[in-house]
């Protein structure tokens, strides 16, 4: 008996003891022995890095990327900001000026900035760029090896600060390889890599950095990385914009959304990459110090990425554009917006993200055409476009959260988007019947007599909002009598997407620069030459495996004009019109990211009032924040 009593007490004591010591620890805060006021803590959406000690980003996929490595320690020739940029959308980083192409786009000359140094004191020169290209071509398993070997015939440093690329074939967009949207080809430190015998097996730990920060400390379990501001930060490209304020950057894996919200409420996480809308609302309500892109609703930052319902147009059922249109007309975008983003979505009827510079180049100018657009249901012609959907969503929301909802139409268009397709079951019925489907009982039958079954592949946990959108669409189709189901492809989505192993897919095949009107970034890959045969892997991004002669022509024309050529806008609008007529994917909304920033220790985050960059912390552009942030008090 005594034995048993003593056991119990010992057990309880140990628990209480532990709890005790933990109490004192919470007071001590999230990071031991770092000055909190000089530290910016950001979420790394990559989560926990399996291979924590690996910093050689040029080896494919061996370590973390957005653990601060590409935001703070790496650099390349140019950046294009998805928003307005520190001093314009186009940013010459390591390059001193824009790329200089020859007449037929077979040669690109780059002038480099001077006085830029690696963190180990070695100066950055053309030799590094040349080595980067040469090495990637030499080691065919490096990350950008293929892209470079395909394009580059020869590269040479004509002067210490001038490089000339000779291209194998004309390419007016070659510089894009060295231009950061999210990332780009990062420049390697020649003096480091030329010493190692196999650059593919080299972990590059501790990394010699070209950015303003150097690695300070990292978790061998890959949960956190801490970077320290270089003493010679002036000798980096970021330094040109002034001294970065945070002395330390901590990129951490705060865990699932709830934990992120809690962490920020405890002021232990300055920048949340993304949370579910409800988490966002909670922070907006309960954490006075939290701010987001939009001051009020819908808060989120719209990434230049266009989530859409992607058809596998190689499936017989979805070969007919009438079927695709029918399914589009069965979607009530308002419900989808509510289910996915609780209304905090920026909708788009056309295949271009309604963000950055795009509305002024595309969405705005195309409104009239859209309103006039006619669709032949086989029985009659209808005008499916409703220019006021954005307005309707705003009004719908105003009832519950009036003060937060803008009233100015421009603001509404910016926040909620412009128009979308009217939900029109009648027209959908006609379209389906036109292409041989028929309703039996309360279920639809495909022409082959089988029930009309549609599976919508979603990514589950990995992308909650998209999963919610997909589930809502499924529900709407099911109500109409289609045998629709969600198919959660958590983990398998990537493989299935490239293998074309799906009916329809909640994903995106449209990504743009955001700040720049050029569409080749995604559109070039939509050319019929790249469409893979059924069953074989499809290269990104034309997941719908769709092609169209008119589109091919557009793409080829774009290839032969300059990056900034205004004619590009015209061609872009042509693409939009073709895509609307054909409906290869049902564009829904921009990818809104609920990036939440805590102003307890730092102010001056990028917002819609001061859109100097994208706050989403895994984008390499987000480095612009570091120079604009101000410590509070």
């Amino acid at each position: 008996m005594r034995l048993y009593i003593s056991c119990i007490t010992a057990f309880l004591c140990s628990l209480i003891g532990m709890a005790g010591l933990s109490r004192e620890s919470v007071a001590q805060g999230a990071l031991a022995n770092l000055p909190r006021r000089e530290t910016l803590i950001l979420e790394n959406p990559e989560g926990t890095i399996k291979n924590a000690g690996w910093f050689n980003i040029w080896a494919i996929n061996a370590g973390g990327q957005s653990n601060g490595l590409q935001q703070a320690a790496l650099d390349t020739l140019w950046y294009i900001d998805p928003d307005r940029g520190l001093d314009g959308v186009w940013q010459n980083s390591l390059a001193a000026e824009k790329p200089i192409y020859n007449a037929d786009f077979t040669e690109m000359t780059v002038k480099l900035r001077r006085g830029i140094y690696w963190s180990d004191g070695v100066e950055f020169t053309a030799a590094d760029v040349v080595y980067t290209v040469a090495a990637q071509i030499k080691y065919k398993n490096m990350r950008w090896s293929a892209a470079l070997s395909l394009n580059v015939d020869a590269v040479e440093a004509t002067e210490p600060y001038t490089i000339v690329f000779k291209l194998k074939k004309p390419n007016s967009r070659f510089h894009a390889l060295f231009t950061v949207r999210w990332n780009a080809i990062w420049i390697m430190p020649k003096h480091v890599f030329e010493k190692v015998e196999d650059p593919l097996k080299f972990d590059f730990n501790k990394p010699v950095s070209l950015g303003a920060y150097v690695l300070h400390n990292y978790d061998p379990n890959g949960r956190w990385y801490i970077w320290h501001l270089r003493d010679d930060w002036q000798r980096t490209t970021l330094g040109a914009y002034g001294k970065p304020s945070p002395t330390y950057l901590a990129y951490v894996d705060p865990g699932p959304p709830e934990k992120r919200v809690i962490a920020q409420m405890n002021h232990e996480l300055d920048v949340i990459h993304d949370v579910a809308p409800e988490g966002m609302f909670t922070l907006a309500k309960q954490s006075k110090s939290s701010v987001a892109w939009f001051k009020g609703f819908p808060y989120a930052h719209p990434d230049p990425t266009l989530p859409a319902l992607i058809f596998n147009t190689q499936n017989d059922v979805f070969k007919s554009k009438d079927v695709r249109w029918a399914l589009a007309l069965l979607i009530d975008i308002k419900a989808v917006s509510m289910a996915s983003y609780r209304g905090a979505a920026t909708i788009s009827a056309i295949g271009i993200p309604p963000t950055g510079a795009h509305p002024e180049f595309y969405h705005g100018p195309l409104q009239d055409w859209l309103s006039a657009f006619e669709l032949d249901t086989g029985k009659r012609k209808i005008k499916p476009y409703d220019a006021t959907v954005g307005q309707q969503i705003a009004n719908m929301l105003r009832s519950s959260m009036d003060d937060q909802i803008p009233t100015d139409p421009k603001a509404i268009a910016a926040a909620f988007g412009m128009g979308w397709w009217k939900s029109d079951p009648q027209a959908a019925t006609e379209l389906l019947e036109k292409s041989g489907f028929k309703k039996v009982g309360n279920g639809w039958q495909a022409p082959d007599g089988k029930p009309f079954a549609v599976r919508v592949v979603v990514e589950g946990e990995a992308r909650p909002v998209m999963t919610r959108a997909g589930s809502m669409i499924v529900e709407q189709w099911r109500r109409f009598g289609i045998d629709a189901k969600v198919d959660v492809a958590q983990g398998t989505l990537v493989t299935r997407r490239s293998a074309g192993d799906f009916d329809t897919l909640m994903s995106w095949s449209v990504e743009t620069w955001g700040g720049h009107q050029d569409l080749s970034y995604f559109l070039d890959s939509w050319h019929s030459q790249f469409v893979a045969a059924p069953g074989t892997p499809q290269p990104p991004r034309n997941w719908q495996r769709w092609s169209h002669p008119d589109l091919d022509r557009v793409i080829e024309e774009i290839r032969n004009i300059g990056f900034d050529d205004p004619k590009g806008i015209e061609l872009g609008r042509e693409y939009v019109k073709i895509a609307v007529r054909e409906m290869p994917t049902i564009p829904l909304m921009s990818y809104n990211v609920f990036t939440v920033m805590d102003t307890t220790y730092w102010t001056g985050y990028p917002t819609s009032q001061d859109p100097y960059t994208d706050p989403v912390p895994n984008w390499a552009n987000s480095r612009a924040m570091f120079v604009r942030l101000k410590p509070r008090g």
Partner: protein
Amino acid sequence: MRFYVKYFAQRLFQFLLVVIIGINLTYVITHATPIDPVEQSIAAVTSFGNTSPEAIAMMRQSLRELYGLTGGPAEQYLNFWRRIATADFGPSLSVFPTPVSLLIARALPWTIGLLATATLLSWALGNLLGGLAGYYQDRRSLKFVAILAMGLHPVPYYIVALALLVMFGYVWPLLPISGGFGMNIEPGLTPTFVLSILKHSILPALSLMLVGLGGWFLGMRSVVANVVNEDYVVYAELAGVGRRRILRSYVMRNALLPQITGLALSLGAVFNGAIITEQVFGYPGVGALLISAVYAGDYGLVLGVTTISIIGVSTAVLIIDLVYPLLDPRVRTV
């Protein structure tokens, strides 16, 4: 002695059989995964990057060669066993070229440290209390423990973990709710580091023990409740043998036997349990590694982890089997 040689040989044979069947099973299953590691890598590279379709086609080919996925299935299978023989699981595909063995070596201490300890602790404590509760059936304090156990034990582990997380993470934020240790702490035998580890392990450990302990407690209690009525216990009582001696040498001694088998089995749960524990508490370890490997279609890693766990568990079972006859003479004549 002759018996032991025979017995040992049998058990060893069985052990090997289990390991080989198990590994083959997982080999087949893991290779049936529809996830293509090459596509995963390419997606990781292209999801944000700007890469032309031709480039991807090229990359795909070279990656296949790099990951050694070009050979036929038979060839790959042979390679696999060749590697196992040399205790080398080759490179991980999802974090190429880092060797699988290195990744596991990093993760294993965390898993063992947390789960094995928790399991053993709750086993010992649960059986002690359970035994006492079964023998002294009218002790009020033990009745209370019983009620507690009945309330806690049946609750699914995930729920318990979630509840603890909510209680001590959100409602009453006392304890860290993710990670193995605090930020910016240098690993090493420093008090700060050890303290931080302890602190981070409380919630996961507690969750494991709450569930485990109840099970052992109730199990032991019911076994003892039966043993108490065995003739040899009654007889010993009639012979006026002291209660404590009866409890120790007659009741506990005999009741523990099934529980010992139980322990060996529940050690098997360590590697499964690790997954959920590490998911919920963001705790580092083999489970987290395994899941991420499954996601990445990283056969190498999945196989590595499962193989290690299979060998680990069956070794535990083997040891128990070898010790068992020392504890239960009856088995020796089987």
